[in-house]
């Protein structure tokens, strides 16, 4: 009876005060949702080692222990018989031998070469000259010994028909030279990562590492960062920046503006993750040897908390990197803290051919019958800065316009040295002024750096030039998947509709230089036209392309 009364009272209370119970249920739901969504999830370098956290799965090898054949179908479809150049990139995780064969669907084969691949973690360029008889349409890469366990990666396969008619002419073909930048060399590092630097959990903190530059260029920086994040870490971005500092043991002060920076959110940081679990952030910047620089992460735009922050790894030992220190900025005060972050600074060097520097991306290729071709074009990326031989103060790369620019004052200029390795028959220099309203550009060239000759320019509608560039870019993108490079991507003013033509004009440099003596090097100086009375404060060239016909006999 007593029990029934109590039960009735409780039921009655719930009926009268049901709101209280609804709120209790609501609180319970909020707790469960928060526990599921916002509970701490930590990703460490160690837990991500072995490629476990990579967003893009690592590419698969074309030749493995289980697959000793790799066919490139239809590579020679619609190609006539004759002499060809085959180019591709390869890397192998152990020394391997492969056989290259021409192939058809009827399984007819014709061996063209045998190649030895060395063990390497970098792709290497390969080039083979061969004769293509009638009746073949595919290329076969075959392991010489199918029992070997090496993994071979093959990509960027391309063919070019040669202006060669017999074997004696083929024997005179020269190996193609490609200008490349090596940005894999670690210049400075602090490899100890036993300790954590969790200070970015506090708001408005800048945490970074001071280092002393050994090389004039930085191309990337590696850090070990543990990620503490809940399921809703937000999309606000951390800013990673490089700037010069004055550093003297415990005193640190900033000098000048940010040299280069990049931004990422906790959600997008994984694109920088490497197979070993570390992060490599591309950060191209020009440094001065022996000066001190700070690479730091700024969390001031991010909603950080104890469950949502990035945690640098490093060493609390001050001697782990003697030429710098971990640095923190809190409430406008910048100071060195105990220890050093784990870091690797990557440099960037133009590769040399017989001691001669070739511009990054430049190609020197033999066409047969003693003729060759040189081609170089700017890429619209920061790496273009590395191609400059000299640059006056203030010369920088603009991420927005994708150009190298300099302030038009005093004797500002920047220059290129074009080494072609072989005598130049004829060279073409093409570029346009970046924008109407910018200071007019003066381009001079010289064979000896003493006698400079100005290149003539014409004026063309800016809209037409932009439309040509856009069409050319689109065509280039469309051709990316193509195995064979053709000249169809060349766009002329005839392709542009008349309605885009407006009055604003820009300079167009499209000049031919024919040396009167044997010349393998031409110097180009880009400066501004001091007679230009416009109010433009900057000058720059856009879409620089240099091509040359070479004498390769």
């Amino acid at each position, binding site marked *: 009876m007593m029990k029934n009364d109590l039960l009735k009272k409780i039921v009655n209370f719930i009926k009268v*005060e049901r*709101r209280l119970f609804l709120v209790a249920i609501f609180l319970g739901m909020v707790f469960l949702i928060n526990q599921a969504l916002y509970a701490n999830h930590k990703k460490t370098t160690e837990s991500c080692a072995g490629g476990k956290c990579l967003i893009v799965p690592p590419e698969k090898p074309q030749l493995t222990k289980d697959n000793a054949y790799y066919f490139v179908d239809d590579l020679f479809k619609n190609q006539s018989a004759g002499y060809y150049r085959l180019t591709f990139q390869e890397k192998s995780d152990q020394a391997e031998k492969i056989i290259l064969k021409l192939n058809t669907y009827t399984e007819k084969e014709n061996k063209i070469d045998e190649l030895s691949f060395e063990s390497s973690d970098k792709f290497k360029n390969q080039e083979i000259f061969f004769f293509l008889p009638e009746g073949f349409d595919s290329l076969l890469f075959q392991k010489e010994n199918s029992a070997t366990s090496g993994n071979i990666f093959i990509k960027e396969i391309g063919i070019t028909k040669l202006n060669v008619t017999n074997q004696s002419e083929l024997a005179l073909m020269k190996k193609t030279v490609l200008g490349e930048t090596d940005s894999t060399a670690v210049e400075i590092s602090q490899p100890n990562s036993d300790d954590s630097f969790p200070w970015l959990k506090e708001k408005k903190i800048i945490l970074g590492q001071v280092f002393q530059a050994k090389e004039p260029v930085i191309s990337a920086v590696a850090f070990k960062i543990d990620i503490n994040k809940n399921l809703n870490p937000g999309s606000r971005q951390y800013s990673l920046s490089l700037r010069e500092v004055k550093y003297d043991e415990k005193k640190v002060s900033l000098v000048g503006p940010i040299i280069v920076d990049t931004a990422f959110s906790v959600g997008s940081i994984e694109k920088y993750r490497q197979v070993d679990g570390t992060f490599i952030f591309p950060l191209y910047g020009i440094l001065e040897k022996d000066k001190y620089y700070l690479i730091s992460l700024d969390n001031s735009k991010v909603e950080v908390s104890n*469950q949502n922050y990035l945690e640098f790894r490093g060493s609390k030992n001050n001697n782990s990197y003697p030429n710098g220190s971990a640095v923190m900025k809190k409430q406008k005060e910048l100071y060195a803290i105990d220890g050093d972050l784990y870091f690797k600074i990557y440099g960037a060097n133009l590769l040399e051919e017989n001691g001669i520097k070739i511009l990054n991306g430049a190609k020197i290729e033999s066409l047969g019958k003693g003729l060759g071709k040189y081609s170089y074009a700017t890429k619209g990326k920061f790496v273009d800065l590395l191609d400059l031989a000299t640059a006056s103060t203030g010369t920088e790369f603009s991420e927005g316009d994708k150009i190298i620019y300099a302030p038009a004052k005093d004797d500002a200029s920047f220059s290129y040295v074009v080494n072609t390795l072989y005598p130049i028959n004829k060279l073409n220099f093409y570029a346009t002024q970046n924008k109407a309203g910018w200071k007019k550009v003066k381009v001079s060239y010289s064979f000896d750096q003493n006698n400079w000759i100005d290149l003539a320019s014409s004026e063309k509608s800016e809209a037409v030039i932009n439309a040509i560039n856009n069409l050319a870019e689109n065509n280039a993108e469309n051709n990316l998947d193509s195995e064979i490079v053709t000249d169809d991507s060349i766009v002329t003013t005839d392709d542009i509709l008349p309605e885009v033509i407006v009055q604003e004009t820009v300079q167009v440099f499209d000049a031919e230089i024919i040396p009167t003596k044997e010349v393998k090097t031409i110097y180009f100086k880009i400066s501004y036209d001091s007679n230009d009375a416009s109010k433009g404060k900057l000058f720059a060239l856009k879409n620089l392309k240099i091509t040359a016909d070479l004498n390769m006999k």
Partner: protein
Amino acid sequence: MLKNIIKKISLKICLEAILFLVSFAMGFYFQWEIANFIFFVIFIFLLLHPISSRIVASGAIIFLIATAILLMAKKNNLAEITAIWAYYCMIFTAVLAFHELRLEKEDAIIPED
């Protein structure tokens, strides 16, 4: 009778106090932002002691106007915060309006004697 009422009120107050304590504990446990935490406690209070939805709706309008002004002043970060507050107020308004609608329906059912 009075004793019973006092007993009932005491129990209600006790339970409400427990609910608020739980709310505080959750705020600390999940480390909510102070503003989010305050809005959460206000929401719990409004669930337990509903007020006119028009009052809360006016709060939403004030925050929306503040957002527009802050955007014009290019104070984007602050504008983002006030927009979130306006959103909170609109949720409160919707919940309170739903409650008022239920009350109106209950009042409309007049027993025929």
